[in-house]
């Protein structure tokens, strides 16, 4: 899990677009995708219990099945072992209510789709994280990673 980015997103189109964006800047950190809030919660709880390496960054959608992004965020911030994990919200909603609730819970970034698909990495680079990049070469658009 080290150096891993945890993407919690139920819409496969959005997963595809985020993966494309990361691929475009040749980011080689492994990406793990979770399709609902409960799955992500179980995964993080397991890692914390086993003292296993945690993901270095969480990209979190707000509208998720079972457990919403806000509920998951509240849980993360309340769990001592993972409370400090950097979390970036990645959402389609520009609603003030959503934005305020996320910041109240101590989110690090609030990025709005679709613009965020292109700018996500530019913005997240300000975080001092163990980023790793593939050696430059011809980009292979459309290919899964």
């Amino acid at each position, binding site marked *: 899990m080290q150096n891993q980015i945890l993407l919690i997103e139920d819409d496969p*189109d959005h997963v*595809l*677009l985020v993966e494309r964006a990361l691929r475009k800047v040749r980011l080689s950190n492994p990406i793990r995708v979770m399709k609902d809030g409960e799955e992500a919660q179980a995964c993080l709880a397991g890692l914390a219990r086993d003292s296993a390496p945690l993901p270095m960054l969480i990209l979190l959608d707000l*509208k998720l099945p079972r457990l919403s992004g806000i509920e998951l965020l509240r849980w993360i911030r309340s769990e001592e072992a993972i409370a400090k994990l950097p979390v970036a919200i990645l959402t*389609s*909603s*520009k*609603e003030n209510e959503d934005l305020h609730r996320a910041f109240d819970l101590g989110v690090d970034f609030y990025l709005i789709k679709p613009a965020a698909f292109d700018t996500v990495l530019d913005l997240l680079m300000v975080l001092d994280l163990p980023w790793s990049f593939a050696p430059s070469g011809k980009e292979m*658009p459309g290919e899964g990673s």
Partner: protein
Amino acid sequence: MTAARHSRAGRYGVAIISVGCAMLLKLDFGPWLGEESPFLLLFAAVTIAAWYGGLGPAVLATLLATLGTDYFFLHPVHRFLDLDHSSSVRLLIFLIEALTLSAFSAALQRARERAEIEAAEQRRSRELFRNTFELAGVGIARVAPDGHFLQVNQRLCDILGYQNEELLLHSFQSITYPEDLPLDIDAQQRMLAGKAKRYAAEKRYFRKDGTVVWADLAVSLVREPGRPDYFITVIADITDRKQSEEKIRLLNESLEHRVEERTEELREANAELRAFTYSIAHDLRAPLTSMQGLAQALMDDYGEAMEPMAREYTKRIIRATARMDTMTQDLLGYSQLYRSELRLEPVSLESVVDEVLAGIAPNIAARRAQVRVERPLPAVIGHVATLQQIIANLISNGVKFVDSATCPVIVIRAENGGDAVRLWVEDNGIGIAPEYHERIFGVFERLHGVAEYPGSGIGLAIVRRGAERLGGTAGVISSPGQGSRFWIDFSIHS
């Protein structure tokens, strides 16, 4: 017969006449009466004067009788105050006896008069009591210390539905509604113990026919020296009033119930609106976001490889999704005006206008528009964010709906009118025909094609709804080719 009933002249006249008559009789019948009892008839005259006229006339009669006797009957006759020893003594004795008789007679008279007055007063007071008791509009009873009725009036019998004799067989305890009895008995005990002088309450009685009557009760205790004698109880029938009160209470209850129902309905509607907007913000926008992202990815990654026509189609997809994006955002902004609670406070229109102008400066510059603000603008009661949205929409409107050949000129000014302020945003644009003046404030109402004047059709709906949320309203004065003058009314007091 009392002295007070006769005139003064009558009383003294009777005294003089009775003495005169006694003198005449004595003169005429002197030989038969004899010398030895010269005063007998005169005593009678003094007595009549005292009886008829009181002390004053009796004294006058005594003096007249004394002088008359001296003159006519005592030796030497026909001379005043020239008497022998024996006659003087007799006259003096007569004088003393007559005066004593007068005094006793007058005292007797006064005592009798007083007694008569007192008797009359008692009669009047008894009558007064009986009238009050029987003719009063309220029920009255005398009640024994143990609670039995001693005396009741007709009105009380009517209120309780009993005959007089029937009611006298009852006590207040036997006809009081059970729930109200403990308070009554407690008050009875306290009054008997001397801890309370009076007791008043609203209570219920059972009528003879079993129905319940509401009464306004007032009780006082009458004491003999050393012991309670009886209660005086006054009872008014307040059943009608109680029934009205009950009706009002039921009405209020049902009104409260209806208000609660309405509030609940509104709460539900509000919750539905929230769910609806949440769904637009998240669920509806998710596929839109995919379309925007994927179309852009297609353009970015394969644009160069595409034929020109394919590129054009892709561009149109991107534009359409962008428009839909704007519309959903504006719709959410509009619904925000229904959802959110606005705290109204005094706001300076001038600072709001300045902030808006700073925010849309790039848009204004791009259109080469001029905006003139007629300062100063007053303060109004409003909400900063909502006001900014309204004014931004009106200025953007003025800048947008202009002939391509014309440079937009916007004038912002305020008009004071007593308690209200009217803010004008005037433009030199294409104008609006009168038949559309109302329609333009509706949601998604558009007068022009998207290609001509792009937009979501929600801007003016936000202006109207926003003004309403601030307690005012908005309108327009315009005709085609003459520009438009939009106005918003604000109040200046909360």
